[in-house]
């Protein structure tokens, strides 16, 4: 049974196109988000690990080592079981610092461009054998099905198609920050396909190939001796080496790193993957032994690696054969797409960008996109070149061993990154380089010599398929040893130390608080423009601000520090950590000659993030910290903590209420840059020598407020950075009460004076009046009579004044019992009284008060109040004017407003209007005691009086009298 090239091409391209359609459907949001982000999709996407080696090569491995083939599945399962301490911390680091490949991660940790370059170059030694393995597998299977076209041509056609699809899948857009959700879904889809294919084949073998139920067991029992002869029992050495290699693959293989970390859009899914992925591998591996035995049973005429396909051909089942071919194609295509994408990004960041970066005038994003596409093509063509030179003569397991041993060279660096902060770049690079040289010398060259018959002109170890593990373990061992020895014997740079703390699993790094030279976001954009171009600089800065949920303009040192770190992380995702770090260091430098202090605020935020992970004493200490923090936050006084350089480190809730400025807006700002009036006020107090300040007046929101301020200086000691704590106390209420008390006191003293004066003046005035009366009786002289009349008129005037004074002086001492009073009635009474006056004839009084506006008080004195208020309103009004009296009430108060449309009261007069003897009327027309009297009576009634003048129209005055409401709607005697 054979297939034509057209059929195979249709099958292959059709499958890849359907895979692309699945990805496209996700990108177009045709599928629900909940499906795409489901942990199952993530777990299945990790199935990219099960490449053509798992699909075909595992059977070959099982043929060679029996159950030893399980090492391929168990090694990586071990890594996933350990995910809380191995994969999860790496996921955290890659997400935080936007690291998209292993080279990014190691270059970030070891703060070395050379680390990135060496990892990228050595990754080539991992990637090329792995890609060659896939190309070999697909080329061979195509040849098995076609048997016409040369296998090399079939492999080349496959490579070219894969270049196109790899670009379609992962290099259509530019920003590496965007997760390729379509790719993840497509890889999950292909995992399902290969799983179904291998399970169906396993089922066919178990229930279709062997004659009856239990036939396999019977056949195994009959052929045990023959099988034992053909298989090598895997010894301890190779088993452990295989386990170690496949364990390392979980993080070191580029396709695994890409799917597990770079494309992870649901961190919680890793927890499910810790058991879900081993389960997937278990199901994948379940069919391997039956396939091998069925291959023997059916005498399949092919390499054991291709028994799966051979069984379909032997059974002459087109369906089974096509299904197995598609399953294998899925396994190979998935790893090729993911590996080329991730490796292209890695090479771009670590091999291209450090050497060449386009001028800012070019579209940087577009340039990156085309570079990535070109690199995808170059990598796949390199793999095809390797396939043509050596690959076709090396079998799948040899290619796999070459790739996996090379990838395990990264293991020391990765473990050091997580668990050994003292490790350094010198140790890492030297271990990696020497380990890789050992791999080339001990494994690559002997394999080439063995398989290709190359004549190597120097001595090589006698490595073959039986003892390859010795060379592998030697390479890894030398790598480990050098890593440890050189790390111990050399020092780390401060930069490296900081990165080590950031990566370390028990990270307790204390962020420092250095101010940037750029003082706001605009300056940050300007600083980056020469390197990135205006468009990219703006886009990256605004993206970083958006990520941090900060406004588009920031000048807080704390916010700028965070912006810088975020920019470095985002640029790292775009161009790798080395280039991003160099770029940020060069264009966004910190200020020089500034004392380095710790960023307490950021440290606290970090501790807050760690809260749930703390245990034992650390947890207790953290609880204590939170308690003290809460105490300060809830303190009924404004608390503001300042760093020695004036940066705000803490701003509690009361401080936010008093200033109307939220903590998140000011934390990290320099105190002098706080909005007025708080910035100047706190800065003045901070720089003054006074430790306390009482009743400091501040005009805020158009009204005066008074604050008490206290400060305490924190002396730096040990790791404590020192600083200043300022307490702010609102004393406005106290101040207003004091002023009111003083005002009342002044009024009272004037009242007492007036009473005395009235008493003393009363008697002589009575005498003068009597004498004037006598004079009228004693003379007929008209001049003297007129004089006597004038004297009497003047004395009456004096008497009126004295009477007013007497009334005023007695106002504060009335002790009448208050009773329910109808205010509307009092107002009507006052209007009637005023209407008796000639002056009131041409004024229109309108009482709009609702009936039964009940208050508690003395009706007579309230009438006196309204007579005064309405009289003043009348005097201020022009002839024909109108005076309105309005009233309303709520549960506690009755409010009466007397409104006129007169000339209003000047602002300077308003301040003195309730003072005795203050009047704006002409001499003789007013005593200046009317409103003082009103004020006293209202106070006596526990009420309040306020004057608003001029009104919105620019004229008129509104006097509002508030009196306590009477709850008993009883009518007074006045009604009767």
């Amino acid at each position, binding site marked *: 049974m054979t297939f034509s090239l057209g059929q195979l091409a249709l099958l292959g391209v059709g499958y890849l196109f359907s895979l692309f359609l699945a990805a496209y459907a996700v990108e177009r949001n045709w599928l629900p988000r909940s499906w795409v982000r489901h942990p199952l999709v993530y777990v299945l996407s990790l199935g990219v690990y099960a490449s053509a080696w798992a699909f075909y090569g595992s059977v070959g491995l099982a043929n060679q080592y*029996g159950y030893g083939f399980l090492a391929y599945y168990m090694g990586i399962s071990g890594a996933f079981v350990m995910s809380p301490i191995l994969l999860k911390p790496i996921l955290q680091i890659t997400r935080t610092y936007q690291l998209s490949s292993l080279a990014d991660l190691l270059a970030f940790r070891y703060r070395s461009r050379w680390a990135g370059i060496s990892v990228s170059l050595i990754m080539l030694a991992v990637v090329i054998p792995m890609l060659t393995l896939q190309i070999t597998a697909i080329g061979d299977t195509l040849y098995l099905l076609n048997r016409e076209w040369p296998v090399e041509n079939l492999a080349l056609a496959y490579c070219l198609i894969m270049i196109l699809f790899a670009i379609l899948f992962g290099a259509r857009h530019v920003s590496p920050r965007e997760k390729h959700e379509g790719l993840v879904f497509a890889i999950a889809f292909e995992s399902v396909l290969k799983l179904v294919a291998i399970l169906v084949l396993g089922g066919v073998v178990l229930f279709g190939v062997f004659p009856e139920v239990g036939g396999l067991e019977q056949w195994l029992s009959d052929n*045990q001796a023959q099988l034992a002869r053909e298989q090598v029992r895997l010894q301890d050495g190779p088993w452990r080496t295989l386990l170690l290699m496949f364990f390392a693959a979980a993080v070191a293989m580029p396709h695994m790193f890409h799917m597990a970390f770079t494309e992870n859009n649901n*961190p919680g899914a890793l927890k499910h993957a810790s058991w879900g992925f*081993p389960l997937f591998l278990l199901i994948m591996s379940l069919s391997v032994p039956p396939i091998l035995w069925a291959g023997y049973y059916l005498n399949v005429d092919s390499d054991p690696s291709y028994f799966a396909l051979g069984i379909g051909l032997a059974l002459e089942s087109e369906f089974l054969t096509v299904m197995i071919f598609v399953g294998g194609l899925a396994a190979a295509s998935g790893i090729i797409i993911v590996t080329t994408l991730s490796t292209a990004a890695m090479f771009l960041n670590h091999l291209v960008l450090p050497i060449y970066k386009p001028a800012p005038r070019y579209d940087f994003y577009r340039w990156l996109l085309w570079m990535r596409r070109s690199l995808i093509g170059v990598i796949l063509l390199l793999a095809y070149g390797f396939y043509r030179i050596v690959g076709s003569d090396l079998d799948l397991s040899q290619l796999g061993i070459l790739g996996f041993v090379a990838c395990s060279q990264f293991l020391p660096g990765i473990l050091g990154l997580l668990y050994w902060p003292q490790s350094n770049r010198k140790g890492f690079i030297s271990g990696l380089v020497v380990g890789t040289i050992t791999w080339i010398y001990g494994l690559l060259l002997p394999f080439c010599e063995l398989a290709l018959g190359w004549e190597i002109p120097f001595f090589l170890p006698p490595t073959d398929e039986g003892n390859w593990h010795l060379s592998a373990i030697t390479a890894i061992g030398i790598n480990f040893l050098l890593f440890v020895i050189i790390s111990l014997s050399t020092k780390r740079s401060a930069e490296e130390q900081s990165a080590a703390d950031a990566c370390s699993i*028990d990270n307790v790094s204390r962020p420092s608080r250095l101010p940037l030279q750029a003082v706001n976001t605009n300056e940050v954009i300007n600083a980056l423009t020469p390197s990135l171009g205006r468009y990219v600089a703006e886009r990256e800065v605004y993206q970083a601000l958006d990520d941090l949920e900060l406004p588009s303009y920031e000048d807080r040192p704390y916010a700028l520090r965070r912006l810088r770190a975020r920019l470095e992380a985002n640029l790292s995702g775009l161009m790798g950590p080395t280039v991003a770090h160099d770029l940020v260091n060069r264009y966004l430098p910190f200020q020089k000659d500034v004392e380095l202090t710790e960023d307490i605020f950021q440290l606290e935020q970090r501790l807050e993030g760690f809260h749930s992970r703390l245990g034992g004493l650390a947890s207790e200490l953290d609880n204590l910290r939170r308690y003290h923090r809460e105490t300060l936050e809830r303190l009924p006084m404004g608390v503001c903590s300042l760093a020695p350089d004036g940066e705000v480190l803490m701003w509690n809730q009361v401080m936010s209420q008093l200033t109307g400025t939220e903590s998140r807006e000011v934390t990290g700002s320099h105190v002098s840059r706080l909005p007025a009036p708080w910035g100047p006020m706190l800065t003045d107090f901070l720089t003054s020598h006074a430790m306390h300040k009482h009743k400091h007046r501040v005009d805020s929101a158009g009204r005066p407020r008074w604050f008490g301020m206290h400060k305490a200086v924190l002396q730096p000691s040990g790791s404590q950075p020192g600083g200043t704590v300022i307490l702010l106390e609102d004393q406005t209420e106290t101040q207003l009460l004091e002023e009111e008390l003083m005002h009342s006191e002044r009024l009272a003293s004037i009242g007492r004076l007036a009473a005395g004066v009235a008493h003393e003046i009363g008697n002589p005035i009575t005498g003068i009046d009597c004498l004037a009366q006598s004079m009228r009786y004693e003379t007929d002289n008209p001049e003297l009579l007129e004089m006597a009349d004038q004297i009497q008129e003047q004395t009456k005037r004096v008497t009126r004044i004295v009477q007013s004074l007497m009334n005023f002086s007695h106002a504060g001492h009335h002790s009448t019992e208050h009773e329910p009073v109808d205010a509307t009635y009092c107002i009507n009474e006052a209007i009637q009284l005023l209407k008796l006056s000639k002056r009131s004839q041409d004024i229109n009084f309108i009482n709009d008060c609702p009936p039964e506006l009940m208050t508690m008080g003395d009706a007579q004195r309230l009438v006196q109040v309204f007579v005064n208020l309405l009289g003043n309103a009348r005097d201020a009004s022009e002839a024909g004017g109108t005076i309105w009296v309005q009233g309303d009430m709520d549960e506690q108060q009755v409010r009466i407003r007397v409104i006129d449309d007169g000339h209003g009261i000047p602002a300077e007069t308003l301040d003195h209007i309730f003072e005795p003897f203050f009047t704006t009327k002409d001499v003789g027309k007013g005593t200046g005691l009317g409103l003082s009297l009103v004020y006293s009576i209202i106070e006596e009634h526990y009420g309040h009086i306020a004057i608003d003048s001029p009104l919105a129209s620019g004229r008129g005055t509104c006097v509002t009298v508030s009196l306590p409401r009477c709850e008993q709607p009883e009518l007074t005697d006045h009604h009767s």
Partner: protein
Amino acid sequence: MYDYRLSLLMLVGIYLISPVMMDWWLDDRAAWYRPFGIWALLIALYIWFNSKQKDNDDV
């Protein structure tokens, strides 16, 4: 903090004794699917153990 040192030590221990474990797993006299059965059992135990632990750590 994670007690990762203990976990790492356990991992190394399992790694070193894994050949002995495999010898038992791959006993010729046992059913061919025994290794897979044991593997499935270990996964089930891991799921059960994991479900008992409250994981508050957000990545």
